């Protein structure tokens, strides 16, 4: 009886008793949700265009952020370092396409997946070689990102919003909007969706798969850089981040591997769910539920809706 009370009643009583705290928890959930969404977005872009689950996405986040920080440390002004970091991601995309993807055309998905695992360990080793293994601080202020916080008085309590979190939300929104316009309005964007739909047909109308692949890897490299900056600003930039990146997996299962809106909604659901569950229900299970909650949700989804919330609409003519 007490257990049922603790599960079904007590958390909501607590929420009602301290609405300001609930808001704070929701806000935290929202912020980590956005970061998950950005992470997942990087995976979705590549999966959509080439059917490859890019295991190396997490390390790309670390790699891009480390290039930025290290360039700055080497004396390059912050904004130029940012531009150079973008260029490095472009070079990386072209190199990956040339050296890896091009030679694996027509191979099974699993082989491409293995290639991305190889790639990710290569990048870890290579990254440690040039950047060193120790964690570095993100150059948040130098990039002109706000660092303060604002405190609101509500419900007889307070709500603290970190400015960097607000900036993260805004930047994520802009990034998604730009990508959406790019996909729907431009020639390359159309080509990209065409490739996602039907490889063969895209080839037959003269769309170069190599070019498209390089472009999507670059696009997800930019997304990785944005994620790396935001995540780095909250903690540090270190290789440990790439493990966190695997959180994108449940997000993708929730949202669907091929859907950009799915990645965003999935990310937010996981973000909110995780925080709420940790704070209000976590105590029952001895805490630490944040680590596995997302995966349990993903498992439930796999059982009941394997294509995810927004998975590719299965077009069927009747």
């Amino acid at each position, binding site marked *: 009886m007490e257990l049922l009370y603790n599960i079904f009643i007590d958390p909501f009583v607590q929420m009602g008793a301290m609405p300001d705290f609930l808001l704070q928890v929701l806000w935290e959930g929202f912020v980590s949700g956005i970061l998950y969404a950005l992470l997942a977005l990087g995976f979705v872009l590549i999966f959509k265009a080439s059917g490859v689950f890019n295991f190396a996405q997490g390390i790309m986040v670390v790699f891009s952020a480390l290039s930025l920080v290290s360039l700055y440390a080497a004396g390059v002004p912050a904004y130029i370092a940012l531009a150079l970091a973008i260029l490095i991601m472009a070079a990386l995309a072209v190199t990956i396409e040339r050296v890896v993807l091009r030679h694996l055309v027509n191979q099974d998905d699993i082989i491409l997946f293995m290639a991305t695992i190889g790639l990710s360990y290569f990048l870890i080793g290579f990254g440690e070689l040039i950047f060193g293994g120790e964690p570095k601080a993100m150059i948040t202020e130098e990039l002109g990102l706000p660092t303060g916080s604002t405190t609101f008085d509500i419900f007889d309590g307070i709500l603290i919003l970190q400015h960097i979190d607000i900036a993260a939300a805004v930047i994520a929104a802009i990034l998604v909007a730009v990508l959406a316009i790019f996909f729907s309005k431009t020639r390359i964007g*159309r080509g990209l969706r065409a490739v996602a*739909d039907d490889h063969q*047909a895209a080839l037959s*109308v*003269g769309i170069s798969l190599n070019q498209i692949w390089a472009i999507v890897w670059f696009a997800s490299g930019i997304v990785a850089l944005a994620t790396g900056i935001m995540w780095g600003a909250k903690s540090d930039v270190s290789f440990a981040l790439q493990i966190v990146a695997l959180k994108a997996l449940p997000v993708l299962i929730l949202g669907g591997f091929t859907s950009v809106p799915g990645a965003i909604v999935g990310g937010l659901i996981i973000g909110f769910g995780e925080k709420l569950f940790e704070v209000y229900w976590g105590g029952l299970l001895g805490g630490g539920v944040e680590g596995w909650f997302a995966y349990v949700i993903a498992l439930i989804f796999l059982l009941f809706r394997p294509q995810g919330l927004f998975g590719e609409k299965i077009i069927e003519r009747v």
Partner: protein
Amino acid sequence: MSKETKSADNILEVNNIEVIYNHVILVLKGVSLTVPRGGIVSILGANGAGKTTTLKAISNLLNAERGEVTKGTIKFNDDEIQSLTPNELVRRGCIQVMEGRHCFGHLTIEENLLTGAYTRKDGRAAIARDMEKVYEYFPRLKTRRKSLAGYTSGGEQQMCAVGRALMASPSMILLDEPSMGLAPQLVEEIFEIVKNLNIQEGVSFLLAEQNTNIALKYATYGYILENGRVVMDGVAKDLRENEDVKEFYLGVGGEGRKSFRDVKHYKRRKRWLA
């Protein structure tokens, strides 16, 4: 016909090509054919005869299926094209409409047409003009321009696929099995448009068809493929009246003989081209 005039007249020359899939499966065993500039040429034959493979060998889509041209030459506008990417080939004016339409299901009809213009560099105005032209040839596409291609009918998808190829402003279209799965009336409609495109836009066509009847009605010349070999070729009118063709492919007259294999005298034709 002398060599010089020959190449000037032909937009496409396929000379004795051999195609192997997966390094082991020999699919084409020496196919030769030519398409005169401004002509409609048809490749006929049953399932598995090698029609699609021939077209894909020309458009270079074979590589994507682990197929490979191991012998022979293919010339488009007098240039050898085996080493070109499909992308480069489309740019030069040779585009394939694949069997089974292959429209981009999650793109609208209009977006599908625009993907056809992917390789073009001559500006939006020219592309918009061609789009209007495609809509003139296929008024039905215009009414459905905002629908997702995946939700349109088979006939509309076939029109979309042909229209999409036209958007590349090609000089030659390789058309694979346009009649597949369509009602006879629609098939007729599509072939009429092919004829109009041929006459008005000067587009040359190489089409692979199982529907021998309609193919020979619209084509000027035909090649009959069996087991990866050309077993017979001739002017469409002659083929239509040929007793064997009638029997094997048009379903009229004769009994007992089932294929060209049973007819000795065609067997060794065209060997001299090797």
